[in-house]
């Protein structure tokens, strides 16, 4: 396949920008070309080096978060907001290693109401899920997920979400849920974790983050739009 010859790292730039109004360089200073109403430019959203994701996985994650959170007049794309960075850091850290996950066997197939029943840590679960998704996508399109066009990526994720994508021996629906959950965690959590850069999601919805006190505001802003800019944990340090 011809496009497999494109070095993955270079391709990341394109993946992050596909179908979006905002273009953010991987290592260069931020470049944002967007409508006048676009949010403020964000600083470089991707790290120089990923902590745990390999290049194929990093490209996959960027393409997923940009599909789930496309750039528009409300915010830059998921990856430009740092959501891929967030996911990399989460999977590299305690959560990814299985913190607060009971991992004694035997590992039996439960009902859906039992929740996660696999032996895999989140890090290894995502490794397996990304590989399974790319295998499935390659069979249909001859290329990895991150090299699909936006419409194809959306269609693929929808099939996974609805459980129609058949991954041999692996639940595409559950993996989609894991992707959606960690993407939303990254988009909406405090920017100290690498996602939600410039508090883009908080500005989008009007969440003020963590002002010190609403003791007076709760009366002053009764049924009134709260108009103070958001603050992150970093703003208090």
């Amino acid at each position: 396949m011809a496009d497999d010859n494109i070095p993955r790292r270079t391709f990341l730039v394109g993946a992050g920008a596909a179908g979006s109004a905002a273009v953010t360089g991987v290592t260069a200073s931020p470049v944002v070309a967007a409508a006048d109403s676009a949010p403020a430019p964000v600083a470089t959203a991707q790290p120089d080096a990923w902590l745990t994701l390999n290049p194929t996985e990093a490209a996959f994650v960027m393409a997923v978060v940009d599909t789930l959170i496309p750039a528009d007049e409300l915010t830059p794309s998921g990856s430009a907001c740092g959501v891929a960075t967030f996911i990399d850091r989460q999977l590299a850290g305690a959560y990814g290693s299985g913190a607060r996950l009971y991992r004694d066997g035997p590992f039996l197939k439960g009902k859906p109401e039992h929740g996660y029943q696999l032996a895999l840590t989140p890090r290894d679960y995502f490794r397996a899920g990304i590989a399974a998704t790319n295998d499935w996508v390659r069979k249909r399109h001859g290329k990895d997920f991150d090299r699909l066009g936006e419409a194809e990526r959306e269609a693929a994720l929808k099939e996974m979400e609805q459980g129609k994508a058949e991954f041999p021996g692996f639940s595409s629906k559950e993996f989609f849920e894991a992707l959606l959950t960690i993407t939303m965690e990254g988009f909406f959590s405090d920017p100290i974790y690498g996602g939600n850069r410039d508090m883009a999601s908080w500005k989008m919805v009007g969440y003020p983050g963590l002002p010190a006190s609403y003791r007076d505001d709760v009366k002053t802003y009764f049924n009134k739009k709260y108009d103070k800019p958001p603050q992150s944990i970093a703003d208090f340090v």
Partner: protein
Amino acid sequence: MTTKLPEVDVVVVGVGWTGSILARELTKAGLRVVGLERGPRRTPGEDFTVPSIRDDLKYAVRQELFQDTQMETMSLRHARSETALPVRRLGAFLPGTGLGGAGAHWNGVTWRLLPTDHKLRTHLSERYGAQAIPDDMTITDYPVSYDELEPYYDRFEKLCGVSGKAGNLRGKIIDGGNVFEGPRQAEYPNPPLEQSVAGATFETAVKSLGYHPFPAPSSNASRVYTNPEGLTMGACIYCGHCERFGCESNAKASPGVSILPALLSDDKFELRCNAYVKDLVHDKTARKVKSVRYVDTRSGEDYEQPASLVILGAYVFTNNLLLLYSGIGEPYDPVTGKGSVGKNYCYQVGAAGVTVFFEDKEVNPFMASGAHGIMIDDFNGDNFDHGGLGFFGGAWIQAGPTNGRPILSRPVPAGTPRWGRDWKRATAKWYNHAFNIGGSCCNYAHRENYLDLDPTYRDALGRPLIRMTYNFKENDYRVAEYVTAVLGRIGRAMNPTLINTPAYRRGNFSAIPYQSTHNTGGTILGTDPKESVVNRYLQAWDADNLFIVGASVFPQNQSYNPTGTVGALAYWAADAITKQYMKSPGPLVHA
């Protein structure tokens, strides 16, 4: 090798709400008390400070303050015929660990039971006939009446500085309070919290329907308050980081704010954190617990702590486990109905929540406390006629966001995609213009719902996990369907721009979505040693010097959040110990 320590007067297992209250009352009575807490030592001034405590990911999502399932979890099966699987990641409920227990990260909703809840079986039998109660519904009366417990409810409310408005002051019904509550001797210690848009909207709607709204009874102080321990709470700042978080303004009552500073300054109390209790040494002949065995998780060393009196004040699951590990009491057998340890395990049943959307209202859900908003009790307990309804019980119903933290709370109209451009637009449009109306229904005990030891899965100490054999039953589904319909009626009465009224779906109990940390039962109160684990003073039938304190003694679960009743029962048991047991150690009730 186990190091045997010198005997002390009292060992308290678990230093959360109940352990702190018992330890405080018993040291005040002159006893030397050791508190064993399995988790770390946390102090509000060090661990719950701005800005770090407002980390939604760390506390609300990654579960920083909760029981670590790598140490200990529970297994779940829906019926005896199934194999239980471990709950590998907490979801439905979030037990605490560490100093203060779940009392550090609760929301602060502080209820009393209805007088009729205290005599549930008798009341329902009298009103509807004994035959109306299904055979497999193993509900019982509390062997403590509302009137007997009232002074202790009052005491716990004063400890917590509860903000609210009385609806029944010494028999006088007061409009604007909960007119269904039992008579209270005093007004709440603090006035209600500030009104929210959601609460105000709900209040207007339920009044138009003829219901009786009142402000949430909240252990988030509406003003600076000094409690009877001489400890001062700050005024709530509506930061929207209550449940799952510690409170940085000391406005949410918790053991760490409301009692531990006094307890820890008393030389008669010794706190040992990282002390993971393994079992109790029980002398069956003498009907006494001789000692408590624990491992110091900092060193791996095993210790045996003898004591004259033992208080089991851990969470529901641990209270049950320690009896089962120690051979105290007879494990419940659902086939024969014999035995009592593990019996009447209950939870609560979530109705399908209604979400209302208003283009013209600014809800500001992020300005909130954990117990914020307006409630009604018209459809709770037996406050409405159940004749011909085919079920018993109900739910308190409430509107008023507890937070606007967007990782977990982003209401969008039904039919909105969950991602992509349309999802973004809907989320941006509605985030500040929507709120939920919810009700968590009672869960009346069922013969087939119980706790015992898992035959397969083990905890980090090598002991069996607790196994829940649990599912919702017909009564639960019917209550939830009924309450869901009421929620829809209230939602429509608000005339919202849009409304989500999901149908109630009858399904299995799921360990995944958060429902409530309101697990109860297994070491239940009663009048008959064959049918219960503790007597009316929370004293174990099988060990005179063992008192078991917490929601594990509830014979069934009401819709109400349990902490108010748990705190009242803790003071009630403490009074029984100091006024009766200490004078004459032995059984306080002769069966």
